[in-house]
C-alpha cells in the first residue's frame, strides 16, 4: 500500500512558531488595552501628592480610599450616577421595545411605503451626529423640553441603528413561523411578543448593550441639552470636576473607576443571554 505523502498535520493548521507569534501578538494587545485601565485604578488609590512621584508606583501600598470617600459623600457624583442610570435604563428599555416592534413591522408586515420609510431610516444613519445637534436642540427648545429628563431621553430614541439591526434579524426568521402562529390564533402583537421576541433574544441583548453603553458614555448631547445641575449626567459631571476642584487627578480617576462599575455589572449580567437558544430545530435541516 502507498505511504501517506503528508504528515497528519493539515495544511490549515498553524505551526508552533505561528501559534507562538499569535500568542505574543495577543498578549501585547492585551497589555496595551489593560495598562491604561490599571493605571487609572492605581491613580484612584493614591494620594494626590504621590501621583507624580518618581519612579511611579504601579501598586499603591497602602491604598488610599480618600478620593472615593470624597466622591461619594462630598460631591454631586451620586446624583450624576443616578441621573445616568435613570436615563440610560429608560432609553434602553424603550429602545429595545420600540426598535424590535419597528423591526418586526419592517420585516414582516406589508404596508404602503414600507421600503421608502426603511430607506429613509437607513439614510439617517449616514448623517453625521455633529450635523444634527443644533437642529435637534432647536426642536427640543421649541417644544419646551430642554433642561428636562425628556431632553435626555427622547432624542436618543430616534437613532435608527437598532431598527435596522432588528429588521435584519427578524427578516431572517422563516415566514412560516409567523404564518403558523396566525393560523394558531395569535394576534399580530401576539406573534411579535410570543414568537418573534423569544427568538431574537440575543439580538435584543446586543441592542440593549449598545444602547446602554452609548447612553452611559454620551457627552455632547447631555452637555448641550441640559444645564440644570440636578439633571447632569456622569460624563458631563465628571468633566466639570475640572472647574470645581482644579485638577485633582486622583479624584478624577476615582470617578472614572466608579463610573465603570454599572457598565461592567451590566455586561456580566447579560453575558449569559448572548448564548440564547438558537433557532436550530425550528425547521427541517
Amino acid at each position, binding site marked *: 500500500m502507498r505511504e501517506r505523502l503528508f504528515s497528519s498535520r493539515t495544511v490549515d493548521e498553524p505551526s508552533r512558531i505561528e501559534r507562538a507569534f499569535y500568542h505574543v501578538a495577543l498578549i501585547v494587545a492585551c497589555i496595551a488595552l489593560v495598562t491604561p485601565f490599571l493605571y487609572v485604578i492605581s491613580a484612584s488609590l493614591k494620594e494626590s501628592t504621590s501621583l507624580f512621584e518618581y519612579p511611579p508606583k504601579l501598586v499603591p501600598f497602602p491604598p488610599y480610599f480618600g478620593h472615593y470617600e470624597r466622591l461619594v459623600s462630598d460631591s454631586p457624583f451620586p446624583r450624576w450616577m443616578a441621573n445616568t442610570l435613570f436615563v440610560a435604563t429608560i432609553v434602553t428599555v424603550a429602545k429595545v421595545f420600540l426598535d424590535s416592534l419597528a423591526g418586526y413591522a419592517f420585516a414582516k408586515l406589508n404596508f404602503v411605503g414600507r421600503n421608502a420609510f426603511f430607506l429613509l431610516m437607513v439614510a439617517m444613519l449616514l448623517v453625521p451626529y455633529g450635523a444634527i445637534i443644533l437642529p435637534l436642540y432647536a426642536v427640543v427648545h421649541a417644544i419646551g423640553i430642554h433642561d428636562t429628563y425628556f431632553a435626555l431621553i427622547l432624542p436618543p430614541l430616534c437613532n435608527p441603528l437598532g431598527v435596522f439591526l432588528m429588521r435584519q434579524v427578524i427578516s431572517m426568521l422563516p415566514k412560516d*413561523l409567523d404564518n403558523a402562529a396566525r393560523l394558531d390564533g395569535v394576534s399580530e402583537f401576539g406573534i411579535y411578543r410570543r414568537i418573534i421576541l423569544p427568538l431574537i433574544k440575543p439580538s435584543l441583548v446586543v441592542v440593549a448593550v449598545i444602547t446602554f453603553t452609548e447612553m452611559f458614555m454620551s457627552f455632547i448631547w447631555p452637555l448641550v441639552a441640559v444645564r440644570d445641575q440636578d439633571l447632569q449626567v456622569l460624563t458631563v459631571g465628571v468633566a466639570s470636576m475640572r472647574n470645581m476642584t482644579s485638577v485633582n487627578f486622583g479624584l478624577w480617576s476615582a470617578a472614572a473607576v466608579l463610573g465603570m462599575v454599572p457598565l461592567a455589572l451590566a455586561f456580566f449580567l447579560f453575558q449569559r443571554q448572548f448564548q440564547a437558544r438558537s433557532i436550530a430545530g425550528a425547521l427541517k435541516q
Partner: protein
Amino acid sequence: MNPINAPTPVETVAEAPDTPFAIELVGLHKRYGALNVLDSVDLDIEPGEFVVLLGPSGCGKSTILKIIAGLEDATGGEVYIKGRLANYIRPKDRDVSMVFQNYALYPHMTVAKNIGFPLKMRGAKGSAVATRVAEIAALLELTEQLEKYPEQLSGGQRQRVALGRAIIRDPVAFLMDEPLSNLDALLRVQMRSELLTLHRRVGKTTVYVTHDQVEAMTMADRIVVLRSGVVQQVGKTREVYSRPANTFVATFVGSPPMNLFSGRIDRQGSKMALAGVVRVDLDGAPPLPDGTQVTLGIRPEDIRIRPSTSPDVDVVATIRLIEDVGAEDFVTVDASGVRCIVRTTDQGMLVEGAEVGLALDRDAFHLFDEDGIRIEADTAVVAVPSDSPAA
C-alpha cells in the same frame, strides 16, 4: 341601514350551513404584478377526502393552500369553507390547520407546548390543554418526547409534532404543504404510510401539496394536476394515470413517464395508422381525418421487447441504456431518433447497443391532438371520404 342594527359580520366558519363540500374554490385567480400564478381554479373537496395538489415547482399549488388558509389573498374568485364564503375571514377563524413545508415548530417551546399552543391561544384551560396534548402525543407516539425541544428531535419526530399541532384543534380541514419533501427516502416512505393511517383514523378533509407523483398516487383519493396555475386534470389516481387529459399529465404522472410518438393520421379506407418516425396501426382508436397531426402515447409497461425479426414487432429500436431498479429494468431505446423507455422484467436478457423490436399493446394507446389534448372516442371527428354514400 343603521349600523347598530346591521348583522354581525361573520367571524368564524363554525356555524356554517350544511353543505356537501368541505372546501370549494370558485374561479380562483392570483396575480403578482404581470405574473399569473393561478388562473381560474375551480375545485370542490368533499368532507373526509384526501385531495393532492400535484404539479412541478412554481405551478401555484402552495399558493392555493395559502389562499385557503387565508395567508394570502386571492386576486379574484371565491373560497368557501363548509359553505361559508371565507375570502374575508381571518386565518385563525377559518378553522383549518396547516402543516408547513418547513415544519414551523416554535423552537423556544417544548413539544408539549408546541402541540398545545393552538388550544391555549383559543383560551382553553391548562388542564384541558394538557389532557388533549397527552391524547395527541399518544396517537402520534410522542409521549416520551413531550418535554424536549424541536432541536432535540429527529426529522420524523418533528414532522409528527407539526401534525400534532394541526390535529389538536379538530379543524374542518388539514392543509399540508409538502410535509415529507425534506425527509430522506426511507423515512419518507414510512411517514407516508403513517400519514395515511392517521388520515383514516382521524377522517379529516386533507388538502396535500406535493411535486412527487409517487406520493400523490399512493396517498390521494383524488389528484389535482396543476401546470402554470391552470388545473390540467382532476380525478382519481387510476383515472389520472390511465386516462390522462393531456400530454402534460401523461408525462408528469407515472414514472418512468409515458412515451410519446408524434405523427399524422394515414387513412387507407377504413384502416387508420399513425405515420411518423414510428408507424403503427390505430385499429381500436377513434376515427380521425386523414393527415391529422396527433401524438400517440404509451406507458413503458405497455411495450414488449421482442427480437427485431419477430412478426409482431411495430418498431425496431436500439437499446441505449439499461437501468436495473431491482424487480424490473427500465430500458431506454432509440427508435429512429425517438427515445422511449420500456419497463421489462426480462432482466439479464438484454444488452446495451443491441437491436430489438418493440411490440406496442394496442389496448393501451392514448391519442392526443396537436394541442396535446386527449382524443376520446366520442370527441373524435370522422372525416367522411368524398366517395362515401353519405357525401
